[in-house]
């Protein structure tokens, strides 16, 4: 299997494609419930601006993320995919974020084998208090994907977000804003 670094170097040497100013990438973010998802909330409360290209999927921990989940998002045509987990050493489940990093690295290798830029997948770490970091990462990654251009695996008429959610099965947590039913159940318990 090709080393991600070697493939990245090769991709860097390749002639740069002209950047299409109208290209709006579709980016899937696998966010940990304990940190990045809360950081996104905070970014919102802080009224920070970040690109609307990212679509979030909430996970109980990035350690739940498997190679196939990242691949399915790419297969469904996502231009970029990243996982955002807790700071290293601060995972709620101890080492979930370290496993996620290894899996992201493995997927970089698989993409290199397929002739797709390994930079289209990435792993980031942040705490729930890092609203600014969340916005910064979203902006930086979106710029990176805009510079790379559309994914060679891009497909029309397929939703990478829906596909990735489906691949995760029951693992993806419901988004509070989108699932009032779940909130009602919790209120029921409180009573």
């Amino acid at each position: 299997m090709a080393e991600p670094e070697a493939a990245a170097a090769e991709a860097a040497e390749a002639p740069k494609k002209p950047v299409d100013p109208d290209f709006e990438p579709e980016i899937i973010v696998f966010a940990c419930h304990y940190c990045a998802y809360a950081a996104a909330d905070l970014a919102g409360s802080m009224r920070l601006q970040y690109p609307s290209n990212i679509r979030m999927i909430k996970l109980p921990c990035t350690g739940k993320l498997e190679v196939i989940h990242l691949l399915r998002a790419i297969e469904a045509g996502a231009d970029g995919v990243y996982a955002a987990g807790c700071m290293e050493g601060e995972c709620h489940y101890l080492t979930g974020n370290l496993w996620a990093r290894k899996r992201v690295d493995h997927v970089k290798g698989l993409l290199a084998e397929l002739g797709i830029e390994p930079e289209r997948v990435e792993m980031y770490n942040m705490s729930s208090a890092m609203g600014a970091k969340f916005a910064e990462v979203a902006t930086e990654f979106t710029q990176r994907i805009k510079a790379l251009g559309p994914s060679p695996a891009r497909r029309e008429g397929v939703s990478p977000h829906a596909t990735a959610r489906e691949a995760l099965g029951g693992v993806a947590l419901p988004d509070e804003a989108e699932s009032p039913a779940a909130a009602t159940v919790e209120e029921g318990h409180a009573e």
Partner: protein
Amino acid sequence: MITAERKPFDEIIKLVGDKKKILVAGCDTCVAICLTGGEKEAEILASELRIKAGQEGREVEVEHTAAIRQCEWEYLDMIAEKVEAADVVLSMACGIGIQSMAEKFAPQLVMPAVNTNMLGMPQEHAVWLERCVACGECRIGLTGGICPVVRCSKSLMNGPCGGSHDGLCEVTGPDKEEIECAWALIWERLKAQGREELMFADRPPKDWSKSSSGGPRKMVREEAKPV
């Protein structure tokens, strides 16, 4: 267990050629345990093949499945429908499973997606070490439970060679890692067992006719055959 490693993607692509209906068939026994060819890995390879075909604008239909064991007829029956519907099957089982599949569904095209490499044990999670070559005549009762056939670089049967230094072999492994001298290990183990005299005892020559160089081997258990 039997261990295997996935073939490079480019090689797999060549084996598949221009076939349209591809079935990636994993095996949920040994190759699943060594994280190479179980259902999970079959799904990953299937996804990769679809991405590749999509990039090249080719229409393909790639499915994945897994047999509980590809090396047994009964378990192959369970995936027969999918196998027969495919133009080509990419088997992720060990060499035994791949051949069982090719034989049962002949003349169906069955291609290997992995290289079967050894009979190994997991020394730690995700690290496997070779421990047996199925030589057909086990002599580890004389060597403290350490196999010199597989663990000595020269498969020496009567003690170490001159390349043994400080417990290490003069040969280094594929990643330049040190290899322990099997005969140094055997000596230490026999000493710990108080059986050093075994090193100096006469032992009959090993019967290599029971190994793999005498043609394919066969085992029959008469008492277990159906009446």
